[in-house]
Every structure is written in structure tokens, then in C-alpha cells.
């Protein structure tokens, strides 16, 4: 999340607020009848006069004390009162929406709303409309940050519960596709999508959907993951026709964008159970690609092929060193470790802190100094 401090160095976590804080000076109980857009605190609403608000018990010397707006305190004072009395009423239900608007990450409120949905036998189709609006609002209202994905799991979980109760997934794939069209890698959206597909067996068009996303962005790792998900839970990868189709698909994408890590990871990921060397002709195809479409990912894949084939070729060691020292130097420590492991596996003694490759640099880089 991004938090606003008084300092100008911070950007505001923008929040859509359709209601403005009340002009405290001229609150009159009946005013909301005359001017429906005027916000009235719950403490001033006649219909709530029977309920004693419950202030938050932070204790005498609070820590991490939030300077709540008057509106926030007011709504939550009444939420706490409802919770305390375990009130099951329409007014309680309406208040939960206000509480959610103020903090969509308050899982206690969401839970209470679900209790009320059932206790009051609310129309779940109305609830679907509500939760749709809430979820669709979010990307526009909040600067989406890594933390917000964890905090805002509550609305998505709520939607799943409602879909389950209704036992009606009809809108879901389209709804999620819409969310993904704005943020194609949204983790919770994919989570919800996988649940819907598995629960209601909606596999039929999913591979097509995945392909359309990969058309748009061949680097969308979430889409590659979904591809793996669909195939592994439908046809599986062991059918040679499927395996060959998938390999062709990967190599085609790799030719288009050789430095796309997702495509290489997928190629390895789908074959690793049976072994990379189990696929005839694959090594040759990759070696061919090396001439014109080389990348650190291709080299790593070659290394993995040789490893899987249990080949003792010095090629493996050369690739390790090439990656460690030149092509993938950010991962030097890792490649050197793999290189040392190779040597020790093949009975060549190695100093585990040997940071120098065993193949002389002059062999690897004839024109470059060490």
C-alpha cells in the first residue's frame, strides 16, 4: 500500500469518495430528507438512536494509532455496536456496505455481511451485482501495490462464497476476463478463475482464452501458467501428440521473442517429469536455435538437457562458466556452484570456494582478458 504522510514525498493512495464529510456545524436529523446527498453521521440519525455506539478500545497509551476521519470512527463505532449485540437486521446489512467502502480489507466486516446475507435471506443476485461493483472499482480507487493484493483478498473470497451459494458460475468467466483485460496478471483473478473452472468443469474454451492472452502478450507468465493448468488437468502432457504440439508452440514463440523467459520455463516445465532428453530431436532443434536465437535461457536449457541425459560432456562445464562469467553474471554464484557440483560428481576434487572456473578462460574467450 502507499500511505500518505504529511511530507510531500508521498503520493496519496487515491480513494474514491462519493460522499463528503458532513458540515458538522449544521447537522439536523431531517436534513437528509431535504438533501439526500448530505452525509449524516450515524450518531445523528434518528433511526439509530436506540443503539449505543462502541468506541474502539485502543487503551490509554495507544500505538500505531490511526487518525481516523470522523466518518470512519462514526461508522465503525456503530459497526462494533451491531457486532456486540449480534444484530441481524437490514440496517446492519446496509451499514456493512459503508464499513466496506471505508476499508475493503476489513475481513470481520465481510464475514458479518455473509452472516447477514444468510440470516436475512438476502437476494444473492443483488449481492453478485454489489460484489461485482466493488471488485471492478478497486483498480481505479487504489494504487495497486503488492500489499494491496494480499489485503484485498476479502472481496474476492466473498464473491466466491456468493457464487457457491448461488451455485451459478454463469457470469464468472466473463467477469474475470474483464478484470484480466485491465490487469492481465492479477493473481486473485486467476485464483478465482481456476476455482470456477475446476468446480464447475468449465474447461472447454480455456485453452483458446489462454492463447488469446498470449497473442496479446507472449510474456504473460500467468497465461503460460494457465496453459499448463488446463493441459495438465485435461489431456495431460504424456500423450506424444500433445507434447509435440506444445513443444512446437513453445519453439514458435521462442523464435518470435528469444529472450522471453516464460516460454523457456514452460518448455522445461512440461518436460521435466519425463526428462528433457526423453523428447527425441529436441536437443538438436535447440542447438540449431542457438546459432540465431541464443539467450541465457537457451544456454541454461541446453545445460539441463545435458544434465538430464547424464552426459559427462565438457560442454556442460563450458556452458556453466559461460553463464557465470559472461551471459548470466547476475547468477554467477549459482552457476559456479553447479559447475563445482559437476566436477565433484565426476570425481574431480574441487575447493568449494574455488571461484575460478577450471576451464582456462583463454579457451572460453580467446580474445578477451580474464
Amino acid at each position, binding site marked *: *500500500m*502507499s*500511505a*500518505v504522510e504529511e511530507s510531500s*514525498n*508521498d503520493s496519496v493512495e487515491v480513494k474514491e469518495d462519493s460522499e463528503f464529510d458532513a458540515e458538522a456545524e449544521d447537522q439536523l436529523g431531517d436534513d437528509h430528507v431535504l438533501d439526500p446527498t448530505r452525509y449524516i453521521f450515524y450518531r445523528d440519525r434518528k433511526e439509530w438512536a436506540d443503539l449505543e455506539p462502541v468506541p*474502539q478500545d*485502543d*487503551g490509554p*497509551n*495507544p*500505538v*500505531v*494509532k*490511526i*487518525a*481516523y476521519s470522523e466518518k*470512519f470512527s462514526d461508522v465503525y463505532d456503530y459497526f462494533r455496536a451491531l*457486532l456486540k449485540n449480534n444484530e441481524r437486521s437490514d440496517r446492519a446489512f446496509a451499514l456493512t456496505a459503508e464499513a466496506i467502502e*471505508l*476499508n*475493503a*480489507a*476489513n475481513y*470481520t466486516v465481510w*464475514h458479518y455481511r455473509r452472516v447477514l446475507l444468510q440470516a436475512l435471506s438476502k437476494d444473492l443476485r443483488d449481492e453478485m451485482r454489489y460484489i461485482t461493483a466493488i471488485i471492478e472499482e478497486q483498480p481505479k480507487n487504489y494504487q495497486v501495490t*503488492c*500489499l494491496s493484493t494480499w*489485503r484485498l483478498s476479502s472481496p474476492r*473470497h466473498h464473491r*466466491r462464497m456468493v457464487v457457491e451459494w448461488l451455485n451459478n458460475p454463469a457470469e464468472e468467466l466473463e467477469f474475470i476476463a474483464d478484470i484480466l483485460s485491465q490487469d492481465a*496478471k492479477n*493473481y486473485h483473478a*486467476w*485464483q478465482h478463475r*481456476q476455482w470456477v473452472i*475446476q468446480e464447475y468443469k468449465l474447461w472447454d474454451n480455456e485453452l483458446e482464452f489462454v492463447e488469446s492472452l498470449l497473442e*496479446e*502478450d507472449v*510474456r504473460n*507468465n500467468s497465461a503460460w*501458467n494457465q496453459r499448463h493448468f488446463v493441459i*495438465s*488437468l485435461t489431456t495431460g502432457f504424456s500423450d506424444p501428440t500433445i507434447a509435440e504440439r506444445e513443444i512446437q508452440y513453445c519453439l514458435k514463440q521462442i523464435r518470435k*521473442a*528469444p529472450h*522471453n523467459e516464460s516460454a523457456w*520455463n514452460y518448455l522445461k516445465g512440461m518436460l*521435466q517429469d519425463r526428462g528433457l532428453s526423453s523428447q527425441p530431436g529436441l536437443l538438436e532443434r535447440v542447438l540449431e536455435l542457438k546459432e540465431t536465437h541464443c539467450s541465457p535461457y537457451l544456454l541454461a536449457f541446453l545445460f539441463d538437457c545435458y544434465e538430464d541425459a547424464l552426459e559427462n560432456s565438457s560442454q556442460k562445464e563450458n556452458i556453466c562458466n559461460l553463464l557465470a562469467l559472461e551471459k548470466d*553474471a547476475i*547468477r*554467477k*554464484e*549459482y552457476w559456479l*556452484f553447479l559447475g*563445482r557440483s559437476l566436477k*565433484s560428481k565426476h570425481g574431480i576434487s*574441487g575447493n*568449494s*570456494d574455488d571461484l575460478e572456473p577450471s576451464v582456462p578462460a583463454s579457451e572460453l574467450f580467446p580474445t578477451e582478458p580474464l
Partner: protein
Amino acid sequence: MDGLPTPLRCLSECHPAEMFTDDGVDTVTSLEQKKVERSIEEVISVYKQIHSLPQPTLLRDQHYQYLKKGLRHLSDAYECLDASRPWLCFWILHSLELLEEPIPSAVASDVCQFLARCQSPTGGFAGGPGQHAHLAPTYAAVNALCIIGTDEAYSVIDREKLLDFLWSVKQPDGSFVMHVGGEVDVRSAYCAASVATLTNILTPKLFEDTTTWILRCQNWEGGLSGVPGLEAHGGYTFCGTAALVILGKEHMLDLKALLRWVVSRQMRFEGGFQGRCNKLVDGCYSFWQAGLLPLLHRALFKEGESELSRQRWMFEQRALQEYILLCCQNPTGGLLDKPGKSRDFYHTCYCLSGLSIAQHFGNMDLHHELILGKEENRLAPTHPVYNICPDKVSQALQHFHRLPVPGDDRQPDIASAYGPADPGNSRNQKDLPWCCDDTLSSGAKKAETCH
């Protein structure tokens, strides 16, 4: 530190060559990545102009002021974290302990009393007073109390009720929901395992089938997802792996595949880590991702790996420190995701935690430091499983292991309550979780005596 400091990797001639290769194919992913790289380039270029001698500096005083204030008061922008206040306590207290800033005893006591108000009458801790218990604030509250480490802090935790709470969120398939009526994901297993071991309420049946469930989260990429089937993600990978380490089952993962996945998450240009393949760098992954390397190092060591380095983790420690110090600090205090983002306490905590991991290598009796920039940049070491300082881990374990494990009358097959203690109950030294004999903490003590 005499003589010229080591030149910065990001200022080397070869560094620009590490920028993203888009193969002439523009997609949203490549456009976003290039945008970030340009902003990093800008930061580096400004840095170069201002500083004749590259000595990145951790803005200790500024961060301290930011943290000190936040521990007491937060603006209304924090309304969105009103259900995460124990987290705010943890993020701030852990940041302060990494900076080796003492927490005044009055404040510490106030934190204890506040967290006591966040404790649910039915067990576990909630996001704020009067809210429902939830595994995430439970994890945060227990960690915060262990950082404080006083008897007052430890005694806040109602261990019997905490165990009740853990049972109440345990699912038949081995997973845990985050709260009653809530969602399942792999974070919950980590939160549960962390608090159960620190407070010594671990019973054999509590994590039955949890290992199997977590293992299902390791996917074709080698990392772990939030629930089985999803994309591998740094936060979830850390939680799943750390949970398995706590349960002593990390060897059941495909460690080699996991290692390959996590090292591949370090960005060649930025130096920091991304959360998922083909996504953007983010300072918080300095901990979630880089923090996996110490866990894997130890796991591989236990598996008999003989070629592990005795000085370095298997990621580029300098590059990560450069990213954090040059790109993730707000000049008025606090740390952040990437240039252009605003500071917050979550990023402050995890950027500093990642910086600590990058500065300290420790394995068995070894401790090797690599401090980028001034010696004053040095942070306290952090425990890679719990992410609180190792001495606080040991202290908490020592304290709670003197207390009996709460009664097992929840379980049908435990011996009667009348007889002597069930020998199956883990009060035996050798059954203590691995962290008890983890000499990372003794390593940390060694480092401290050097200064």
C-alpha cells in the same frame, strides 16, 4: 575501510548491456520493464553526478524518525490498514531492531498492552481491537512480542487459546484458512507453524497433512503458488518453504528446481528481485525471494551438498544492496518498492530485512559479512525463517520451552490426562524444531562481538 571502496556494479561499463532485450517485440510486459529500467538508469546517473566516490549510505536517522513516529501515530491514509495493526507493530519494531535502535521500555509496554487488546477471547490475534482473529495478524503479533522479548510481552500470549484458534482454522486436507470463514492459501501454514513453534504449542497432529498440501503448491516453474495450480510467486514461495523448514520437511521439495526458480528472479539490470517471472522488480522481494537462499543453503547442506560456498549465498549480494540503497530509500525516511513509489512501513520492513540477508552470510560456525558502502550501513542479522533477530528467536524458544505444551484433549488418541506426560509430546530436546540448534544465532553473536 581504507582505500577506495569497491566500485559499484551499477556504475560499471558492462551494466547497460544487462538491460532488457525485447527482440523487437513490444508487449505490455516489455514496455513496463523498460520503463522501470529507464527510471533506474536515471537514479544511477543522478547518483553518479552527485557522488564522486560511490559510497551508498543507509539513511539511518531518517528511517529512525519515520519509524519512531509511525509507532505512535499514523495519518488517516492508514485507514486501509485498520485491519492490520499488529502488522504495523511488527514492521516497525523489526525495522527498529535491524537498525539496532532500542525500543524504550514504556513504548514496549504500550505495544504489549495494545496487542493484548488485539487478542481474541477465543484465541489468536485480530487486525485490531474487537475484530476477529486471523492468522496474519497472529503471526505479526507473536513476532512483535518476541522482538520486545520481555516477560510482559511473552505473557500477553494466551497459549491455550492460541492452540484452540489454530485448530479452529485447520482444514481436513492439511491446509489452514486464514480466519474462520476465510480463504486458504499457503501463507496460513507459515503463520501457523511460526507461532506454534515460537510459543511451543506444537503438537504432532496439528500439522498432519500440512506438508502434503504445501508440496502441492510447488509447480512446473519450481517455485510455489498460493494454492495448487497458480503461478509461482515470491511471497507464497517463501511462506511455503519456511513452513516446511519449520516442520523439518523441506527436503521433500524439489530443492534444485526451487533454487533455479528463485535465483532466476534476481533482475540482471536492477539488481533487486521480481515476485514472479516477467514481472517487475520490487524492494519487498529483497526479503521474500533473497530470504529463500539461506533456507535453501541450509537445506542443501543437510542433504549432503558438498560444494556449497562458505562465504556467499547463491544470489548477487552486492547488486541487491545497491538496488536497495540507491533505489529504494525515501530521502526523508522509509523505504519503498521502486523509484517513483511512495514509502510505507511494509516496504521499510522488507527492504531492510533483505538488506540484512544480503549483508550477512552465516552457516554453522561461519559468519561472513559483505557490507556495501559505509560500515554504518550494517544492519543486525535476521533469522531467515521467522524474520526477527536470531537472538530474539532463541530467547523466545528458551522461554516457552520451559512451559508445558497445552493439553491435548482436543485429540482423540492422546493418552489420558491423568497419567504422566505422554512421551509422544515434543518436550524432548531432540524433538525441538531445527531452529533451536540453529547456529545462525550463535553466528550472529560472533559478529556482534567483532564490533
